[in-house]
């Protein structure tokens, strides 16, 4: 187990990001206590601050209202090549614009971590795939997902065909769109979803 130690530039360093999900509530820390160290938040804080060192303060005691723009976040190595990067940041931002405050940032990494329960992951995956944010996955959403998944490998009509088939398969009540329940029903049959829906671990920098 790694020791925590203080580094002036980035604050407290500690464990890899995956483990933070266990912490947000069970330790009972408030935001002011967060930054005193002894919590994986500080490592995330370090990552957050790395993105914009002159914007993000070291001291989060007063919980300053600072958001980073989506292009900064999506430039992180974890997200840079992900075809859904824009949707991910939009989903986790408070107002849907893609700008993340620190707590949104923590939220993102905790949901996309190892420890998050399956149903939370499903909920957020649903949100990420819901491109027009109407609470349902319609055929256009699915088509867009397929587009992102395959790049330019499939022709537009093939994409249409795939999304049409998906709607036929998954839409149990026949209203032309997938609700969260339909989505869950389908995901429950994919055992490897939970292992795939998480961000890669960045090796701990504390040496």
């Amino acid at each position: 187990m790694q020791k925590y130690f203080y580094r002036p530039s980035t604050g407290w360093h500690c464990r890899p990001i995956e483990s933070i999900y266990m912490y947000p509530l069970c330790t009972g820390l408030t935001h002011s206590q967060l930054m005193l160290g002894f919590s994986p938040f500080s490592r995330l804080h370090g990552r957050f601050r790395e993105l914009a060192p002159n914007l993000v303060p070291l001291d989060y005691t007063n919980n300053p209202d600072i958001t980073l723009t989506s292009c900064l976040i999506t430039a992180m190595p974890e997200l840079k090549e992900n075809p859904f990067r824009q949707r991910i940041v939009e989903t986790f931002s408070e107002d849907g614009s893609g700008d993340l405050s620190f707590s949104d940032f923590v939220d993102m990494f905790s949901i996309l971590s190892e420890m998050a329960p399956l149903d939370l992951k499903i909920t957020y995956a649903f949100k990420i795939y819901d491109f027009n944010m109407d609470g349902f996955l319609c055929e256009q959403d699915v088509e867009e997902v397929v587009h992102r998944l395959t790049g330019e490998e499939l022709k537009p009509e093939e994409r249409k065909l795939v999304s049409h088939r998906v709607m036929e398969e998954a839409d149990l009540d026949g209203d032309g769109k997938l609700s969260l329940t339909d989505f869950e029903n389908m995901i429950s049959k994919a055992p490897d979803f939970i292992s795939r829906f998480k961000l890669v671990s960045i090796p701990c920098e504390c040496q």
Partner: protein
Amino acid sequence: MAAHGVGFDADAFFSEAAFESPVDEEGVHHSFSQLIQEQTQDLDSYKEAIEMCPLETEEKSKDDALSLSGPASSVGADSSGSAADPLVERWSSDTLRVLSSMPSRTIGRSRGAILSQYYSRTMQLCRRRQSHRPSIHSFSRSARPSICGYRVESDAAHFEAEENKKEQLINNLQNLSVGERVRMLKAIPLNLAEKSELRRLASNKTIHSPSPHEIPCCSHFKDYIIIALRNGRYSWLSFVSSMQLWQTALKTVSGRFGTGVLSYFVFLRTLFFFNVFLLLVTGLFLVVPQAVRPPVLKKTAPVHFGLELLTGAGYFSDSLLYYGYYSNYTLQKPCSNSCGSHLSYNMPLAYFFTIGVAFFITCIILVYSMSQSFGQSFRVDRSKGLLTIKVFSCWDFKVIKKSSVKLQCENISTQLKELVAEVNRKEVKSSWLRCLFTVSVQLLAWFICIGSTVACALAVYYFSEYMHKDLIDHKHSCSNSSQTAESSGSVLLKEASLLALPTVVSSVNLLMPGFFNTVAWMEEYDSPSKRNYVAIFRNLMLKVSMLGVLCFHWLGRVAVQHPKCMDLQCWESFVGQELYRFLLMDFIFTMLDTLIGELLWRLFTQKVLKKKRKPVFDIARNVLELIYGQTLAWLGVLFTPLLPAVQVTKLLLLFYIKKMSLMMNCQAPRKPWLASQMTTFFITLLCFPSFLGAAVCVTYTMWTIKPSPSCGPFRGLGTMFQAGKRWVEDLATANTRFKWLSWAHAYLVENPFFLFLAAGVFLIVIYFHIQVVDGQRKIIELLQEQIENEGEDKKFLITRLQEIHERKRPISRRIRTMSEESSF
């Protein structure tokens, strides 16, 4: 009610995955009725709005949808265009609103719904604590709220209601124990700020609750340990998976050529492991002990010609490679002092048991992996919505390398194409005349294939007989003439003639699949996977008949006739050499095929014919070649204990050569097909005709054929099997305490009754297993049917609602117009 049922199904599905909650049907129902009550309260609050909103506002609600779809994407603008569905078109906006406020749909859409849902959960939790009755409610996974940015009910009244609910939720949270509260809060899908506010409020109001620092201390520690363990496990798993043989190569292959070609390479890897295992066993228990104590040889064969490497005869015939070299006595450590006999090694017994145990373990591994892959393909095959699963869960969010992302894209699009091709295939129908034509063409093709296979088998049969006679004549002539007259030329010819049979068989194996493919051209199969199965079956037929003829040749001719006609000292070694030659020839012909059939053919088509096409990798033929080679290896283990080493080398080379040739010369199959059951099929083939055939041959040899009298570990015995019997008898005479062992041997091993009994029990177990799996499949089908039925019910009810509404509306309008008139 229909929605209720649907919800139950979904929930039952999840409760399996849910932690620490017994599936309590009543409980689920109960929790749902709770939820529905909540939602109806919700509904009540704007029911008036619905009733007051006349149908004319259809336009407006569309506008709403547009504005709700947000500025984010142009896709959103089309979402209201999903009215292409006739059913949806029929429904008025009111019905749609009712529909979208149904419990199964509202959960997850608004913050208010989330709060109320968790309120009801906490209520149940409190109640449960009071009544001490375990129930499912607390962790029912009925609701997964979502969409922070989207709040339907943003009007003031609703805001108030939401605040109200929040208050209640907080109250409830306070009544929970700290652990439960933490768990509950963690599961609420709100963002962090809202969660921490809830927690702050909940803990502030608690007066008697201890400070949050003390309570979670031990749980904190526990979590810490859990995390450490999990991290350790995951890093170990990733380490193991990165250590897997040829992993990168396999990923590259699957990214470029899809799962079908990948299954060939995976199969090759499986065979490689089987042979490594076999090599380890024979090497450790046979080769190493014998190499440490080499037997005294009567003569050393002269070393000449490089041809021996191909034939395996001459210099090699008296080496560790073959059966004849192994000694028939107990190996003992040479003792300088008195060191007792505790370091003795009974070679015949070791030989017998090593081969037996190796076959037994291989059998178990094969059956196990077969059942395993059956289970997997069964699961994949059964579940509907394969495409959906693929689309929504195939993206690996962990991948961050650009090249890997590209590879993943390629891989996914190949798989999607395969799936769509499979789905589309089902819908094509044709006239019966066309069907008749297709069937007759297929029959003709089958006739041609079977006829040519029989012809080949007969040809090999007569050729082997001829070669055998030739060999005997040769021996006789050699023994008649003086030994010195034996010129080097005749020896060379003799050696080369040994290679004739393997060459003939290998060329048949090489050319016939091409012929089958030509025949298959005129047939029409509606799916590529069916075409593949047919091709595999034909090739299998050919190879099985070849091997059958050869086995008869070896075990029926060479082994039985040897003492009379042939001047062979050791027929086992001769058969071993033959197998070695066959294996080597097979490899050489595969290489030739790769070179000519793939490389030269590609150069020819591209340079001379100026076509863009490349040859397609023939999975069926390549897999069958692998299985054929493996059968030879298994057959030969008894006669050539080091044959697995040859096979391992062969497979190793084959993997790299095939991969290189594939990358350079071949193109991805143009009609990609679903290969989900391919691996299962290959393993089954490996198990049933290949391994079983080899095992039967080896057992037959051990049980009934008399071993050579002058060589090998079993010389002087009636059958190889007697080695064990003799050992047991010796043991019994040496020590009376082991008398029961000889008794047990006589009654249990030699008496076939117990063998039958064991086989019977085995079969019964398999039968029960199949029945259980079948039952589960039926249940799954029933449940799926139920879900579909309830979806239908829901549609029906909604349509009825709509109708009633339509009928009522004119009246209300009339009343309204009347009242308007009266007001005038």
